[in-house]
C-alpha cells in the first residue's frame, strides 16, 4: 500500500485568494498542503478557524474528517468550510503525529463539529483537546481499538484490498466464520479478563449526562446535592417513532426536556472501512444503503466525487437522466418524510399510506430503469447504467404532469391548514438561523430557518445551472416550516422534472468504455450534492491504486442531529417525536 505522498511528490496547492490572505495573516503557521488547501499549525488552529469564519466569511463548516497516513506517520484532519453566499470551499487541514494524536477541538468555533469530532475520535482515535464531551459515538464505550486506523484489522479480515484472491480461480466456498480465529465476527485483546465480564457500556454512556448537570448552566454538580426531580428517559433504540434504531437519552424536569443526548451507532455498518477495501466501483451499491430511501441521489454524490478525481463528465443524456432520477428521489423522500411526520403526530398511517402509494409509482419507474425498487445502483462513473425507453419517459411525464401535482396538492390541502397540525407544529422545535449555520445543519432544516442555502444553487453540480427553479426558504425555523419547505421543494422538483423530461436529448449514456476496475489519479476530492435530507458529501482520497485510500461520507442526517438538543430543550417530551420527525433522519446514513 502506498500513500499518496510517497509514490510521487504530490503537487502542493497554489495559495490564491483567501488562502493567500490566510497565509499572510498567520505566516509560517500556514503551509500549502498537497493537492488542495493549507495545513495550519495546531497552535493557531482555533484562532485561524475564527479568522476564516469571521473575517473571511466562511461561516459554514460542511465537513470535518480525518485521514490516517500510516506511512508518513501522521493523522490529518480535513475541514471544508463554505460561504453561505455560495462558491467553492476553503479547505484547511491540521496534522498530528500518530503517537500523539491530539488536535485542538473546533467545537468552540463551529458547534457543528461536535459529532464529527466524536466520530473521528471513535473511529480514528484522534483526541480533540477542549471537546466538551469526547465519547465514542458510533461504537460503544469500551470497544477495543479504533477501526478506521490503517493498522487496525477487523475480525473477518481477509486481504487488504478487494478483489480477494481466494474467490478465483480456486474459489472453494468457505464461510468467514470458519476462517476467523474466534469462529465469529469478534476479537478480544490479550489483556482482557473474560471472568470480569460486566455490561458497562450503558453506565459509561450516562457519565456526564444530564442527571449530574445543572439545568441552567450545564455545569456538573455533585451527585450529593442533586435534588432528584430529574428523570432520565430512554427513547429507543427500539421505539416506534424514532425512524429506526435511534436512541435518545432525555433528561426531564417534570415533563420538560432539560437535555437530550442522541445515542447512535445501532446501525453502524462500517461503510467507510468496507469502502476502503472496495474498488471504486464496488462502493456504488454500498452508497445505495446509506440513505436507503434516496439511493439515486447517493449514487450521484459518489459518482460526482470520483468523476472530479477522474476529470470526466458524463454525456448529455446521462446528465439529464441523473437529474431526473435525483429529483424523483427528492419527491419520494419528501412524500415519505411528510407521511411519517404525520405518523409521529398521531395520524396513524393514513397520510403515510397515501404518500407511499405515490412513492410506489415512482419506484416502479426506478425499478424499470435500474432493476431495483430501492437499491438502484444506477449511476456509473461517467454515465448511468441503463438507458430508459420512450415509454418510460412518457410514463414519467404522466406522473410529473398529472399524477404528482394532484397528489401534492391533495397533501397540501388536507394537511397544511389542519388545526391539529398547526397546534402541534407551530413554534415547536425552533432553530434560529445563526444556530442552524453554527450547527452545520443542512437541507430542509437549514432552509426552514431562513438560510437560502442549496448546493444546487450555491455550487451547481451536474447540469443544475440550466434549470429554472427556486430555492425554497421559510423563516420561522419550527417544525411547521420544516414541513412546509418539503411541500415547496416537491413543487420545485416537479418544475425541474418538467424541464428535464421535456429537454432530454437522445444519445449516449456512458462516456468511454465501461470498466470495473478504474485507476483514479492520486488526489483528494470532496463531492457534494443537495440530497433530499441535506448536503451529502463524499471525501475521497486516492493514492492511484484501484481502491480509495480514504472514503468518508458527510451524512446530512448525522450532522443535523447535532442540533437536536438545541431544538428540543424546553419542550415537552411528546414534542421530541415530532421534532425528530421534522429533521427526517435515516439511520442508515446517521450511523453509516
Amino acid at each position, binding site marked *: 500500500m502506498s500513500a499518496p505522498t510517497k509514490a510521487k511528490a504530490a503537487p502542493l496547492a497554489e495559495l490564491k485568494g483567501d488562502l493567500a490572505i490566510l497565509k499572510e495573516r498567520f505566516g509560517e503557521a500556514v503551509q500549502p498542503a498537497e493537492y488542495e488547501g493549507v495545513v495550519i499549525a495546531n497552535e493557531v488552529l482555533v484562532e485561524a478557524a475564527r479568522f476564516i469564519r469571521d473575517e473571511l466569511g466562511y461561516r459554514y463548516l460542511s465537513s470535518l474528517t480525518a485521514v490516517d497516513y500510516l506511512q508518513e506517520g501522521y493523522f490529518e484532519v480535513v475541514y471544508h468550510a463554505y460561504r453561505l453566499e455560495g462558491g467553492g470551499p476553503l479547505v484547511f487541514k491540521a496534522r498530528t503525529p500518530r503517537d500523539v494524536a491530539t488536535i485542538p477541538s473546533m467545537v468552540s468555533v463551529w458547534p457543528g463539529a461536535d459529532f464529527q469530532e466524536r466520530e473521528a475520535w471513535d473511529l480514528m482515535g484522534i483526541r480533540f483537546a477542549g471537546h466538551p464531551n469526547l465519547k465514542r459515538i*458510533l*461504537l*460503544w464505550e*469500551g*470497544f*477495543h481499538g479504533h*477501526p478506521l486506523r490503517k493498522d487496525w484489522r*477487523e*475480525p*473477518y479480515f*481477509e486481504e487488504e484490498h478487494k478483489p480477494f484472491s481466494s474467490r478465483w480461480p480456486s474459489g472453494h466456498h468457505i464461510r*468467514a*466464520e470458519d476462517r476467523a*480465529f*474466534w469462529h*465469529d*465476527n*469478534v*476479537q*478480544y*485483546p*490479550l489483556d*482482557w479478563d*473474560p*471472568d470480569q*465480564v*460486566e*455490561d458497562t*457500556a450503558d453506565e459509561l454512556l450516562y457519565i456526564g449526562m444530564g442527571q449530574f448537570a445543572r439545568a441552567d448552566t450545564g455545569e456538573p454538580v455533585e451527585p450529593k446535592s442533586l435534588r432528584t426531580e430529574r428523570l432520565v428517559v430512554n427513547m429507543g*433504540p*427500539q*421505539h*416506534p417513532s424514532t425512524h*429506526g*434504531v435511534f436512541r435518545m437519552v432525555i433528561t426531564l424536569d417534570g415533563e420538560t426536556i432539560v437535555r437530550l443526548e442522541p445515542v447512535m*451507532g*445501532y*446501525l*453502524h*455498518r*462500517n461503510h467507510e*472501512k*468496507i469502502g476502503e*477495501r472496495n474498488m471504486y466501483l464496488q462502493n456504488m*451499491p*454500498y452508497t445505495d*444503503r446509506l440513505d*436507503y*430511501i434516496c439511493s439515486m441521489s447517493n449514487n450521484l454524490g459518489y459518482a460526482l466525487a470520483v468523476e472530479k478525481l477522474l476529470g470526466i463528465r458524463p454525456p448529455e443524456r446521462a446528465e439529464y437522466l441523473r437529474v431526473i432520477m435525483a429529483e424523483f428521489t427528492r419527491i419520494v423522500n419528501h412524500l415519505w418524510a411528510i407521511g411519517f411526520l404525520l405518523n409521529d403526530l398521531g395520524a396513524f398511517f393514513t397520510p*403515510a*399510506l397515501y404518500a*407511499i*402509494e405515490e412513492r*410506489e409509482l415512482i419506484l416502479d419507474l426506478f425499478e424499470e430503469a435500474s432493476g431495483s*425498487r*430501492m*437499491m438502484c445502483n444506477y449511476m456509473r462513473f461517467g454515465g448511468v447504467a441503463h438507458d430508459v425507453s420512450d415509454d418510460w419517459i412518457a410514463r414519467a411525464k404522466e406522473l410529473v404532469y398529472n399524477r404528482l401535482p394532484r397528489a401534492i396538492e391533495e397533501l397540501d390541502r388536507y394537511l397544511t391548514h389542519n388545526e391539529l397540525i398547526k397546534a402541534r407544529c407551530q413554534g415547536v422545535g425552533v432553530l434560529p438561523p445563526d444556530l442552524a449555520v453554527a450547527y452545520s445543519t443542512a437541507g430542509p432544516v437549514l432552509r426552514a430557518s431562513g438560510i437560502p442555502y442549496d448546493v444546487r444553487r450555491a455550487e451547481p453540480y451536474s447540469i443544475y445551472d440550466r434549470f429554472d427553479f427556486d430555492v425554497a426558504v421559510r423563516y420561522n425555523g419550527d417544525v411547521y416550516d420544516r414541513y412546509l419547505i418539503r411541500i415547496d421543494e416537491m413543487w420545485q422538483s416537479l418544475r425541474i422534472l418538467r424541464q428535464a423530461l421535456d429537454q432530454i436529448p437522445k444519445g449516449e449514456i456512458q462516456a468511454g468504455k465501461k470498466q470495473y476496475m478504474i485507476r483514479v489519479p492520486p488526489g483528494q476530492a470532496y463531492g457534494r450534492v443537495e440530497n433530499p435530507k441535506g448536503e451529502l458529501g463524499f471525501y475521497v482520497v486516492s493514492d492511484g491504486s484501484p481502491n480509495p485510500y480514504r472514503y468518508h461520507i458527510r451524512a446530512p442526517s448525522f450532522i443535523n442531529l447535532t442540533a437536536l438538543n438545541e431544538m428540543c430543550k424546553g419542550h415537552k417530551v411528546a414534542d421530541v417525536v415530532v421534532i425528530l420527525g421534522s429533521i427526517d433522519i435515516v*439511520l*442508515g446514513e446517521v*450511523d453509516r
Partner: protein
Amino acid sequence: MDELRDLNTMPVPLELRDNVLVTTIDRFVSYIYNWGRKRSVWPMMFGLACCAIEMICAAASRFDIARFGSELMRPSPRQADLMIVSGTVTKKMVPQIVRLYNQMPEPKYVISMGACATGGGPFKEGYNVVSGIDKFIPVDVYVPGCPPRPEALLHGLLKLYEKIERQSVRTVPWYQRGESEAVPVPILGPDLIDPRRLPEIRARLAALRAKAAEAPSEGAS
C-alpha cells in the same frame, strides 16, 4: 392459498400410529388451533435498516399485509407473535434484539428478512456486524434478498403459515412442562460477548496468551 391448504398434512409420529383416536383428535384440535393462529400473526413494529422500509411497504396499500391478518404491528414485544428482523444486525443492537425476543410471549416466531439479518449480508465483513441473527435467537424463516421485495416478505410469511400448520398441540414447546429458557443477553465488552460462548473464549484467549508469551523467547533464541 389453496395449494397451501393441501400442504396441511401433519406427520404422525410412529408411536402414535396405533392410537388412531388420539391422533385424530390431536389433528383436529391442532388444525383448528393452527388455523386460528396463523391468520393473526401480529408482527412487532420493529425495523432495523433498509429492509424495514420494504416491510413498511408490505404493510402499505399496495401489498397490504392485512390480507394475511398481520397488519397489527405491535410496538410492544408483549403483544407480538412475530419478530421480523428487518435489516442489518449490529453488535451494538444485538443485546436489545435478544432482550426484545425474550420479552415476547410464546408462541413466538422470527422471520429473518434480508441478507443482512440472515447471514450478515453485504456488510458481513464489517467489524460491527453480526453474521446472522440466528447465532443468537432461533429463526423460523429466512427471506434472502437485498432488500427482499415486499412480495418476498409475504412469501416468507406464507412459509411461516406452513410451518405453523405443521405444529401439533401435543408437541409445541409452550405447552410442555417447565419454563422455557430465556436466551442469554449478549454483553458489550471489548467486543460482543456471547455469554454461552464464554468457556470457549476463555480457552482460546489462554491459548493466545501462551503463544504470545512464547513468541519473544523464540525471537531471542
